[in-house]
């Protein structure tokens, strides 16, 4: 269903009356049975720092970089990446947020509509090298939707993709430019970026669910439960 991030994040009945949901990464139903950590906070930080170095190396015109996060998971990662780019090369890179929900390719299907998330593009993308940032890339459908959405904001000089986890199972010809970690998975498993409980801003990537797939365990975990 949902391309790279498992199911639709956030609860269907969203937030309080007064306003938007500030929280980029949902603290999801805490203990999914048998969840295993793929990357802890330090591991995520090491990956992002390495990616920041790679970006600087491979960008002839680093002043024209523009990070665009795909919510929810991409948002804290893009912020960290921007911080790392400042540290590595003293770059000040704008960070945008681009919700892909309205561009999804499965909206023709019937049933309840997925909740929308924030879009905030602080400046024009024209002439910039846009780097899309997502936490987990699987089918490539979210990245396809993000590229379509991006084009509605202008004409970037180039578009590249960062995926913290590439778990395979591509359904579209999408290739990542920067990868934190390649993790072979079974289709039925879930890979999620989470806030570590009790620790402000600390992240971890976990994998859980049955390799067989299709079981209640894997299917229900990311959903409404």
């Amino acid at each position: 269903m949902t391309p790279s991030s498992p199911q639709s994040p956030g609860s269907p009945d969203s937030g309080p009356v007064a306003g938007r949901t500030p929280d980029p990464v949902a603290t999801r139903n805490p203990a999914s049975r048998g969840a295993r950590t793929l990357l802890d906070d330090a591991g995520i930080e090491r990956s992002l720092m390495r990616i920041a170095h790679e970006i600087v190396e491979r960008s002839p015109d680093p002043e024209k970089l523009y990070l665009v996060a795909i919510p929810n998971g991409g948002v804290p990662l893009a912020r960290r990446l921007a911080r790392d780019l400042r540290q590595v090369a003293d770059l000040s890179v704008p960070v945008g947020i681009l919700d892909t929900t309205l561009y999804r390719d499965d909206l023709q299907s019937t049933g309840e509509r997925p909740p929308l998330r924030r879009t905030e593009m602080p400046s024009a993308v024209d002439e910039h090298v846009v780097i899309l940032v997502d936490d987990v890339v699987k089918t490539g459908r979210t990245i396809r939707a993000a590229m379509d959405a991006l084009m509605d904001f202008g004409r970037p000089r180039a578009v590249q993709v960062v995926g913290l986890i590439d778990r395979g199972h591509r359904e579209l010809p999408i290739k990542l430019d920067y990868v934190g970690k390649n993790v072979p998975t079974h289709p039925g498993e879930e890979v999620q970026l989470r806030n570590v409980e009790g620790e402000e801003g600390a992240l971890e990537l976990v994998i859980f669910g049955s390799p067989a797939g299709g079981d209640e365990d894997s299917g229900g975990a990311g959903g409404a439960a």
Partner: protein
Amino acid sequence: MIGRDLLGIEDLERSEIERILDTADHMREIGTRDVKKVPTLRGRTIINLFFEASTRTRASFEIAGKRLSADVINFSPGSSSLKKAESILDTAKTLDAMDPDAVVVRHEVSGVPRRIADVLEAPVINAGDGAHEHPTQALLDCFTVRQVKGRIDGLTVTIVGDILHSRVARSNIHAFRKLGAEVRVAAPPTMLPIAIEETLGVKAFTSLREALDGADVVMALRIQNERLAGAFFPSVREYSATFGIDRAKLHYAKEDAIVMHPGPINRGVELSHDLTDHRPSVILDQVRNGVAVRMAVLYLFAGRAPRAAGPPGPGAGA
């Protein structure tokens, strides 16, 4: 959970209202882009079936549908076969046979959208029926208040004017109460429905001053001359002097009270000229937000599953 049709606020749970408002929050961003269009409802057809004349609401629905890439078709009695005495339901069924993904209905008689929903495959969205409900107006009013005030819970909302004939009032009473506001109504006694306090859970006033005391939101309703067959007040001038809102009377309300009006305005009657055009009036915000709210409604309701069980056809409903 969002239902199949949007017929009235009375049918909605608080969580459903909030889901629509939250969705509208995100839809608003699309209106700020250079390219004000997303592909979400590409290939979908929305029919605006307006038996009663309307420019504003119809235009708002049309823009909302088009910003979501739907094909929007407008049907109104003047251009349809209603003049040839085809019944309302036959007209609706004929349109339904063209497989629309939503039908937006306005009619001067209360309850018509529900009757139509009973026989249609397509979801029905009520764009105003008689003196019954105008749900998307109430949703955009709540959205505007939430945007300006940051909340609705605990606010005092005073609705002033022809409560008796107003579907806007009825929908807003339901909506604001469900979202936790205290709702008051103020009108000449001839324009207050009998037993409104008991049936709708509002406080009714015939003194504007008392009704405005401590109000956070002041909503003036249009004097609908076309619906006022009888003599409900001595003269427009007297109505304006007693129930028209101007800066002097606004002093009775809270210092940061906002002024709303569903439009179209009789300038100088329900609202004084300067209040119409300047803060604390939020009338143009209401119009702008109307598009975002209707985008949210179309996103959430249009083109979803046809009725789950049973073969298509009449008789299955009701």
